[in-house]
């Protein structure tokens, strides 16, 4: 028997967050390419690093699909990506609480801009033209997975997410698509919502356009959000010497998005400029030709 619950963001589960480097270099020397990811708990607005995560494991899926595993130490995980490209991280934490096995999962995509040239020589030679951050395969070591599909956009920038984009998600349990699991969304601005799935199991929502620039300098403002899904199973067993009679999975995915380019771009004016230039150029040519008869393209090369 399966039952569904929608998580409350008052006690949001754990999620992963990349610690951003400040500046590119230290003392004129390039920093090592190490990435640090912290485990966070709380709301998107107010959260803390969870330092005492016991049994927490982070799986790192590299660009060539090899998987490495790291234990969480002092609420963080550090690794040095070898290649340039996308790295998908998966956090897993299990504990039995009041007879329920609580499996807390989180996933995060990190893009590594630099890599060892010797290792990535072939990749550089080949070049990369298609991004693979959307619609990835379910991650086999984890039973429950939340996957972001290609967003639907009304503007021209494809690399990132923006307010107004429609973001579709799919949920999988042991590789099978779940068609009746809702999502919870929480924005940095405090907006939260519960999103019901469509008939084909896709859960999608439009990133709310509440991020209008506050000032002239903040037109390219960005914001964080966390998407979360929960799934309960009536399964019994023993974990870490403790018996349980149900399993509660929670999977979270932190994302960030910017203010929609549509908020500071004008297509009408773009078209009007192009058409205006065409009209002026055409009329100029027309009158130029009327004034001056075109001379034929005639040069005699045999005359010295």
């Amino acid at each position, binding site marked *: 028997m399966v039952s569904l619950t929608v998580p409350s963001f008052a006690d949001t589960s754990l999620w992963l967050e990349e610690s951003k480097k400040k500046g590119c270099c230290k003392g004129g020397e390039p920093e090592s390419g190490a990435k640090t990811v912290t485990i966070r708990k709380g709301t998107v607005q107010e959260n803390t690093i969870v330092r005492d995560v016991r049994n927490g494991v982070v799986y790192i899926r590299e660009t060539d699909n090899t998987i490495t595993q790291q234990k969480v130490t002092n609420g963080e995980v550090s690794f040095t990506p070898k290649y340039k490209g996308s790295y998908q991280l998966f956090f897993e934490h299990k504990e039995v609480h009041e007879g329920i096995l609580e499996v807390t999962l989180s996933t995060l995509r990190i893009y590594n801009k630099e890599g060892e*040239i010797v290792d990535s020589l072939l990749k550089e030679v080949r070049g990369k*033209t*298609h991004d693979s951050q959307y619609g990835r395969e379910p991650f086999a070591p984890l039973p429950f997975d939340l996957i972001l599909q290609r967003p639907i956009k009304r503007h021209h920038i494809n690399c990132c997410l923006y307010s107004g984009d429609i973001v579709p998600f799919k949920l999988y349990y042991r590789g099978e698509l779940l068609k009746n699991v809702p999502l919870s969304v929480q924005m940095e601005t405090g907006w939260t919502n519960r999103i019901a799935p469509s008939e084909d199991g896709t859960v999608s929502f439009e990133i709310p356009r509440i991020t209008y620039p506050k000032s002239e300098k903040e037109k390219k403002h960005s914001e964080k959000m966390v998407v979360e899904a929960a799934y309960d199973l009536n399964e019994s067993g023993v974990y870490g010497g403790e018996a349980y009679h149900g399993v509660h999975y929670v999977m979270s995915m932190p994302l960030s998005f910017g203010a929609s380019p549509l908020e500071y771009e004008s297509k009408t004016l773009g078209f009007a400029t192009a058409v205006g230039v*065409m009209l002026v150029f055409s009329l100029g*040519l027309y009158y130029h030709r009327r004034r001056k008869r075109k001379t034929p393209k005639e040069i005699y090369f045999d005359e010295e």
Partner: protein
Amino acid sequence: MKNKFSLRRAVNNMNLVRFRFWFQIVAFLLIVYGGYAGLDLGNKLPTFACVYNSEGTGGKCYVGMLQHDLKHPLETFAGYAGYAFLISLGMFIVWFWVLNKGWCGFVCPLGTMQDWLSMLRGKMKIGYSEYSWANREKIKSVKYILLILLLLLPVMIANSVFGLPKLPNGLSMPFCDICPGRMMIPAFTGDFNQFYIDFSSKTDIVMTTLGMIVSGLFLVGSFIKKRFFCYFCPMAALQYIFSKPALLKLNKEGSKCTRCGDCYRACDMDILEIADDVTSKNLVTEDCTLCLKCVAACPEEGCLEAAFMGKTIFESTKEGFLLRMAMDQRGEKHGN
């Protein structure tokens, strides 16, 4: 031996315009829509395969990659980014050497669009325009100025050059901002989102407005002037730097040239040297698109030839010239 001779004769007598028309259509389909069929030729192509045609593109233009590669602080450029730049440049050169400037004449989607617009003008029986000889040298230099700017501006975003302040990030892809391919190529997949003016910063306003102006000029200019944009193309300038050792060549046997000027009159780029220069063997100039119309229009036996790795693949013959003249009289286009 006889078969080989016949094949050569058939190639020399071919209707070049028809061959090129269909070759361009196939190349256009692969570059503009190839991505939908999973084609991915990488991101170092020596032709305008637009990065902004995100899903349809069958590969990506090297000019975009070049600007991206150069936007690194000197410290990073001295390491990984520098290697990446050299590898990318190397791959671009390898791709380019296969077809030489034939990338422009046979593959470039922007060039193909210009040829289609010229064809439309021809069908509408509207006369073409030419640049005046007085302005031609100035026009030639525009492509080099654009090339220098597209190389310099990304460097100046990440570094303080000569103590000058760093440039705003809005100039990170300066040529892509004004390239008409950004607007025109996605439009062929139904995506008109690139027609916009960005008001997020002063730099973006200027660059995107320039982009719209260049698009308008491109459409009208290509309609009335054959290969209008190719005169200003920084890709052509970049290609020319590496064109000497390329595998495909346009050769001329000066002793056979009568300087009749047919080749010049057939040339979309008005290259005077093709008719006037009887001393040089390699006639791939900075503006040449290797469309081979000059070879098709030449009446002298073996005077002009296209050679791949030293082997002649298409050459001017009297028979070919007469056959194409006959096609012209029947109303078929043959090469002029």
